[in-house]
């Protein structure tokens, strides 16, 4: 987590690739270059923060294909698409698929740098969020079976009396389980619990709120 972010450059044109690396270097950003999508995939490490500058047209595997592959990963660096003349429709597709930006060649250096900074911010945020979710997940896993059942009933928006009736236990037992869940999940209030659960299960939490 403490690592500096890296700009990964994937372009099969040597000159363009090296030029972009030089540009990154000129503003003090670490850069790594790859001459093909495969080369990048071979070295891919999801733990490493940074962003991906990707030429949309490459032999063997295009930028779009690489983007598709990465989207299967739980965590991957944000993607900036570089397009040539006439590739705008492809770039638009890439953005729809989750790319942060696209830049047309030949590009303004500032525009590329802005895009890179934006992407690194996204990556950082992405990586922070992911960390919190992972912690919450860890806590959820510490719950006993009965505590999970009670948590589910809470998320479904049911009151203690109803939960006791449903589970066939006493209301006081429900309250004891409930306190244990709050303690284990480190939630100081119901709203905080709901926020955590929203991060973990965006869909279920939503329906609970509405319910």
């Amino acid at each position, binding site marked *: 987590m403490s690592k500096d972010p890296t700009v990964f450059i994937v372009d099969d044109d040597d000159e363009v690739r090296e030029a972009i690396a030089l540009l990154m270097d*000129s503003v003090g950003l670490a850069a790594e270059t790859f001459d093909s999508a495969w080369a990048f995939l071979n070295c891919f490490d999801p733990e490493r923060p940074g962003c991906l500058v990707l030429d949309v047209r490459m032999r063997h595997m295009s930028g779009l294909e690489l983007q598709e592959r990465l989207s299967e990963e739980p965590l991957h660096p944000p993607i900036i698409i570089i397009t040539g003349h006439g590739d705008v429709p492809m770039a638009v597709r890439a953005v729809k698929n989750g790319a942060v930006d696209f830049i047309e060649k030949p590009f303004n250096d500032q525009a590329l740098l802005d895009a890179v900074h934006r992407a690194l911010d996204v990556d950082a945020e992405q990586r922070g969020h992911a960390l919190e979710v992972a912690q919450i997940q860890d806590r959820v896993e510490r719950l006993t079976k009965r505590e999970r059942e009670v948590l589910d009933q809470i998320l479904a928006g049911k009151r203690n009396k109803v939960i006791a009736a449903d589970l066939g236990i006493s209301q006081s037992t429900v309250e004891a389980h409930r306190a244990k869940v709050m303690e284990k999940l480190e939630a100081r209030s119901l709203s905080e619990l709901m926020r955590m659960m929203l991060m973990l299960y965006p869909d279920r939490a939503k329906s609970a709120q509405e319910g």
Partner: protein
Amino acid sequence: MPAPLLLIILLAFGALPAAGAAATSPPQPAAERQVLIGVLSHRGDARTRRAWQPTADYLTAQIPGYRFDVAPLDFAAVEPAVAAGSVDFVLVNPAIYVMLEVQRGVSRIATLRNGTNGSASNLFGGVIFTRADRDDIDRIEDLAGKRFMAVDPTSLGGFDMANAVLRQHGVNPAEDLGQLVFGGIHDAVVLAVRDGQVDAGTVRTDVLEHMAAAGSIDLADFKVLGALETPGFTALHSTPLYPEWPFSKLPDTPTDLAQAVAVALLQMPPDSAAARAGDYSGWTVPLDYQPVHHLLQVLARPPYDDAEPFTLKDALTKYWLAVLIGTLALLTMALLTSRVLQLNQRLSRANTRLERRHQLILDSVAEGIYGVDLKGCATFVNKAMERMTGWRAEELIGNETHEIMHHTRMDGEPHPREDCPVYTTFRDERSRFVDEDVFWRRNGTSFPVEYSATPIRDEQGQTIGTVVVFRDITERREAAERIRRREAEQIHFTRLSTLGEMASGIAHELNQPLTAITTNARACVRMIDAGRADTGTCCEVMTKIAEQAERAGEVIRHIRRFVRKEEPEMAPVAVADMFETVLVLMREDARRAGVVLHRQIGFGADYVMAQRTQIEQVLLNLVRNAVEAMLDQPRERRVLLLARRNGNMVEIRVVDTGPGLGKGSPEHLFEPFVTTKPQGLGVGLSISHGIVEAHGGRLRVDSTPGIGATFFFSLPYVDKRPGMTEDAAPLQSSDNENQHAGEHA
């Protein structure tokens, strides 16, 4: 008709009666040999038999072992009968006898003693007389201008004898008489004179006395002109006396038979039955016939008729049938001849018409047509040729056409007559077609022609010259040039549209270096701004920038030349340059399609004669097709541009590892608007094919489904390296770098 032919015809017809006479002779008893006596039948056959058969019977009776018969012969039949030997003896008048004696060698054995009783004689003559009351006619000379009658032109006593006497007295009967007529018989002449139908006449001796004795005339009514006195001869006569008819034998008649006949005749009593029947008084020893010879000589009668065997009238009279047939034959021949002449004339008119028509046909043809003989001289020319060349027919005919209008080649080099296809045609006797040549006009200009030269043969199949049919192809050439220009424009247009289709790839090809340049430059500026720039890094970056700018410039140069309108002429081109252009223009499209482009130039295949941009266009088309064909295939995608030397040619191949061509495509592949691609217009291959053909080659294809397709064609190899051109110079240095153009991108 020539005289000999007439004679032959007459003789041929004349022979018939003699043959007939022989055939009609009565059959003889087997024991006896028949002897035929030919008797001149001047008064009809029946009368002749009646008069002379008794004499024959007398001889039969006198000479044992022989049976004598009479064969009546008319004038014309005598000579042929003698010539044929169909009679053994002849009894004819002295004139005929003399002729036969001279011509056929007959000889007399007895002379007739004519007449009866006191007047009987073996001599006779002619008497010329007039009416006793004609005071104006006393002498023979007085007969000039008078009407005169004789018995017959052939009658010896009735005309010839008097004729000779008249001539002696200066009166030529043929010219000097007022009129000469023939009475036919003696009595008629006598009566015509008595009755004043004619002024005078002549008959043989004894006729007047006989007629007077018979009471039909009175001698006192007549007077004799030029009367002669001859001792022992009592009858009136005006002419010398001549021996009577002789009995003569033919040369082949046996002598003993002739002697027996002569003896029998001389022993015949004057009053015998035979003599009485013949109205004569027996026979005497043969007389001298010299006077007859003389007479005939004077009258120029046969056999003394040097010039005229017969007069026309004789011929007409005696040989009327032959003459008629001859005349008919002549007329027929004349008719035939005139018909033939007429036909001939018509033929010659038709021929003239035909020739005129030929000329008309020749003249109405738009092509120039002329003929030359074996010496190479013009024999005929048509109007179109005169019009096209400006030479007039009379200037060409009889002169060597090659020297006049074929002396110089298209390129201005002299055209030796030994090489002239027109002359070669009559030498090797083969037709030929020449599609490009020039003829020279009279005014010294030339025009392009195509022509056919065909040997002319006569009826025997012998070659006698050449006929040339030619056409001025100026207009066609101009049209071809227009088409060529239009095609070039179309090729250019196609090239532009090809480039348009490739615009995104080519723009990318420019974008790459431009991107590198700007990015590098900006980065460099930032480093300097940040104070982190060292000279080494900056130099390195600047060098990269320069290289990229050159790379962009190179692409632009290729594009610019590629879209430029033709340099129309062929020139030596480096194969590497052409491959380079194609690789530059195709690089990005190939890259997008994931296709690797290679090139390989074999030893000695470095220069070709070509229109550079057009061949580049062909290569670009083929590479694009190859790249597009491989778009959807999972196998490796490669396109190889290959050049290799093959004899005098350089074979250029575009090899791909695509799916190969579909079935049914190859033969139609090079036609316009045939395409196997959903979006293709289908003009690419057709235009490529046209370009290769214009280079004298053929665009061909080899295809193996699942392995790939190879398009290939050949261009002429050229040895000399061209001068350094603006395009070629920078490319020389980049040859190695681009050996695998597709891979480095």
